[in-house]
Each structure stands twice: as structure tokens, then as C-alpha cells.
């Protein structure tokens, strides 16, 4: 709020985004709005698992563009350390179909590992290429004081780390964490009044895929909801993938980042592994991706992740990203995937 130069009484509604099954607090919008001094304005929860705050942003945008409100706060948060890692996996396993899939002990890493094996089989993607994604994101985390992990790692570290769900190893997986991020959305009039450096929402996309893996296929090497959400967002912003100066993509696992490259059109289908191997997603190369550490190394507090991606893009588009600044960045893209790939929110921001 300090950054946006608004006070609590100017915020006309708050949208609190979290995957509520991790929260001990039932209906957390109540306590968060109270704590932030946002009563008596409207407040409510939005849940789309890992895509909660990406979806919250879309709802906030709709509030403003409908004329209902001028200023809205989208608050994403998650407090995951209240549960043990195995308990978290139990909750996450239930992100799949609880009638036909969870009864066999599915986990989030397992779902994405099924995609990884399929991608490797179909396109020849290698474990070394997956590892390169983790190496990049850990490298950039050392430049982000808010990142959870602050040490660089090597391809060998990734390959030698503990197997979680083959072929995904410890460093192929993001970490459960606590965190929060807030986006202040305002109408054009309000934005022009409070800042000289507004960042505009140029494109929005939101799409879904069937929850059950058995309703997808025939191969498990792409997320349809990502492709569809990206198509909508690019269309609304009237840009092409090559126009994006910086991207924040949902790297819950290394394989996800590689599939995202392809689903978002940053490379040809099947070339995601190569893009990672060639270092084409580092700062100064073809398309910088997750140069704040991403979910893999910044941490993945589920409900906060989408809003945190937006924060990184806003800093970049204002030229305030310091050491990791993309020179002359004008267009940023955030890709926020929910659960095992059943929701996807893509947001395009412009200066």
C-alpha cells in the first residue's frame, strides 16, 4: 500500500487468495481483512489452488472494469509450515480425483513426473535438461533477497539429490513455504493520480482442463489450459510470444517450466529441453524466465505465487529490478498454473 500510495480506506474491496485446505484458519479472508484494516469493505476468498492469486487478479480487474470499484487489493498468501511435508503431500495428493486417483497414493511430484516421463519419451528431453532449469532458478534466487534458497547449485547437485518421483529429484521440485504478496489494482484515473509509473494489465487469459488425468491425453507433454489461457491473453494484448521481454512461469517442477516454454510459444513444441540446455532463458538471452528464482528457489507459498509473479514483473517494468533488470523491459508475462494443470491464468502487463 505504501508502494501504491494508497491508504486502507481507499481500498474498496479485498480479494484474499489461498488454497484454503492448507490453512488452519477457516475462511481466512476474515482475519486478513481485519488485520490489514480493510473492514468494513467487501472481502472474500478465492481458491484455485496454485493459481489462486492469478485468478484473484482477474476478478479484481473485472471489479474495476465493470465500474463497481476503483481500487482493489488482491492478497495472496499461504502458511504451509503448519503441516509436515508428508501431511502436505496427503493434501496435495487430493488435488487429483479423490475417487479414482488419490486412493492409489498420488502426489504432486508424481503427477508432474508422469508428464516428465511422457515428455522425455516423446521429445528426448533429458534429466540434465531438467536440472538446468533448477540451476538457473537457484542462481537467480541468490540475487533475490526475498527468495527462500540463497545458494547456487550445479547440475550434478540436482542429479545426485534424493529421488522423489522418478525422474523428479529433490531439486526438480519446488519447496513448500510460507509467504504473501499483494497487488493493488486501480482504475486508469486513480492509477494516473497516484503514480507516474503505472503498469497496465494488457492481457488476461484463464482456462481449465479436466481434473482427472484419464480425461486428458493422448500424451502427457503439454497443458491444454496453458495453451488456451495464453492464446486468450496474447489476443487481448495483441502481442505475440516473441514480444514478451520477461516472463514469470509456473515452475512448480523443472519439467513444468520446460513444458511452459512450449505451451507459451517461447519455442517450438518439443524444444523446451533444448531451450533450457542452451541457457536461452537467462537474462540477456532469448527470453529471460523466472529470473527472481521462480517457485523452485524463491519458494511456492501456493496462494501467494501468482501475486508474487506480478510483483516481479511490476519491478521489472518500472526499471527497479537492480542486478537482474531486463534492459528496456516493456512487456511482461505471468503464467500461473493451478493444481495438476486444471486451471491456468496468464496475465500480460505493459508499461
Amino acid at each position: 500500500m505504501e508502494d501504491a500510495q494508497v491508504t486502507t480506506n481507499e481500498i474498496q474491496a479485498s480479494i484474499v487468495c489461498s488454497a484454503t485446505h492448507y490453512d488452519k484458519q477457516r475462511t481466512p479472508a476474515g482475519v486478513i481483512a481485519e488485520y490489514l484494516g480493510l473492514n468494513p469493505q467487501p472481502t472474500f476468498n478465492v481458491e484455485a489452488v496454485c493459481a489462486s492469486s492469478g485468478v484473484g487478479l482477474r476478478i479484481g480487474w473485472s471489479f474495476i472494469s465493470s465500474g463497481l470499484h476503483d481500487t482493489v487489493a488482491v492478497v495472496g498468501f499461504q502458511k504451509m509450515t503448519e503441516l509436515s511435508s508428508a501431511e502436505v503431500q496427503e493434501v496435495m495428493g487430493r488435488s487429483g480425483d479423490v475417487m479414482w486417483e488419490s486412493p492409489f497414493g498420488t502426489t504432486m511430484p508424481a503427477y508432474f513426473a508422469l508428464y516428465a516421463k511422457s515428455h522425455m519419451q516423446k521429445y528426448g528431453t533429458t534429466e540434465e535438461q531438467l536440472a538446468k532449469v533448477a540451476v538457473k532458478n537457484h542462481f537467480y534466487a541468490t540475487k533475490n533477497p526475498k527468495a527462500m534458497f540463497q545458494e547456487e547449485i550445479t547440475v550434478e547437485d540436482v542429479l545426485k539429490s534424493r529421488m522423489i518421483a522418478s525422474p523428479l529429484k529433490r531439486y526438480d521440485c519446488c519447496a513448500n513455504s510460507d509467504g504473501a504478496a499483494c497487488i493493488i489494482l486501480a482504475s486508469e484515473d486513480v492509477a494516473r493520480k497516484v503514480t507516474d509509473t503505472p503498469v497496465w494489465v494488457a492481457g488476461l487469459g484463464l482456462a481449465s482442463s479436466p481434473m482427472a488425468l484419464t480425461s486428458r491425453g493422448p500424451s502427457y507433454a503439454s497443458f491444454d489450459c496453458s495453451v488456451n489461457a495464453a492464446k486468450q491473453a496474447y489476443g487481448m494484448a495483441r502481442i505475440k510470444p516473441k514480444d514478451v521481454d520477461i516472463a514469470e512461469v509456473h515452475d512448480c517442477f523443472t519439467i513444468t517450466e520446460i513444458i511452459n516454454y512450449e505451451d507459451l510459444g517461447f519455442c517450438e513444441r518439443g524444444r523446451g529441453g533444448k531451450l533450457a540446455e542452451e541457457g536461452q532463458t537467462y537474462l540477456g538471452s532469448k527470453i529471460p524466465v523466472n529470473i527472481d528464482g521462480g517457485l523452485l528457489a524463491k519458494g511456492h507459498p501456493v496462494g501467494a505465487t501468482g501475486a508474487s509473479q506480478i510483483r516481479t514483473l511490476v519491478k521489472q517494468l518500472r526499471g527497479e529490478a537492480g542486478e537482474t533488470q531486463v534492459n528496456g523491459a516493456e512487456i511482461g508475462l505471468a503464467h500461473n498454473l493451478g493444481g495438476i494443470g486444471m486451471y491456468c491464468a496468464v496475465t500480460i502487463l505493459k508499461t
Partner: protein
Amino acid sequence: MSFAKFGKVSYVSETKLQEFETKLEAGKIMGTKCKKCGRLYFPPRADCDCMKGEMEWVELSGNCKLMTFTTLHFAPASFRYEVPYTLGVAQFEEGPTVLAPLSKELGEDEIKIGMSLKLVPVELMGGRMIYELKKLESQ
């Protein structure tokens, strides 16, 4: 109607598809088929998404091909004593797909995408019912 015996752990106790469990106990893998549009479902559904049809039970051969798989070394709390275990997605010769555990008799190095497998009912200790993907020659 109870569905509480299906799976290593049950999260659903009541369903219109209870008959699936009864047939599984009788050694049959059942799907459902819409009498109106003819769509075949596995896992079975009580309603077709054409929202018009009545469903009927159809027995599946169990013959399928492995589409993808993973071996888990880290499990949810209720499965912690089961690791390592392998889950796969396979496509039945009749078309639909299934997510199921692979039989522990299959070594991880034997498992290949595209291999032929058979989905068979398995009774666990305590009377719980599951299905597993097995090697063809082990039938």
C-alpha cells in the same frame, strides 16, 4: 451405498457407482457406456456428459498399453510404508484410460512406455479391493 472398500485408502464412501466395487470383487473391470451417445467411460461415471443418456455397465478386457509412469520414493502420510511404488497411466484397447499402480512384480527397469499390460482386480489384506497393472505373461 458404500464404496468404502475401493482403493488402498478411501476418500469417497457413498456413490451411485457402488456396483463397480461389487463387480471388482467378482473379478471384473467395469466401465459405463451411454445408451444415447455411445460414449464409453473408464473410470465409470453415473452420468454421461451429453447429459441425456442412461448409462449401462460394460465389462472391459483389461488389456492396455502403458502411456506414462513414475516410481514414488516419497509418499503421502497414509502411504509412507508402501514406498517405493509405481503408478502409471494406461490406455485400454477399448479406448479409455486408467491411472493405476503397477504390480510390484515388475522391476523399474522392465517398465517401458508403450508396453502391453493387463489391469486386474486385486484383493488386499482386510478385504480392500484395488486394481493393478500386471505383465501379460503373469496372467
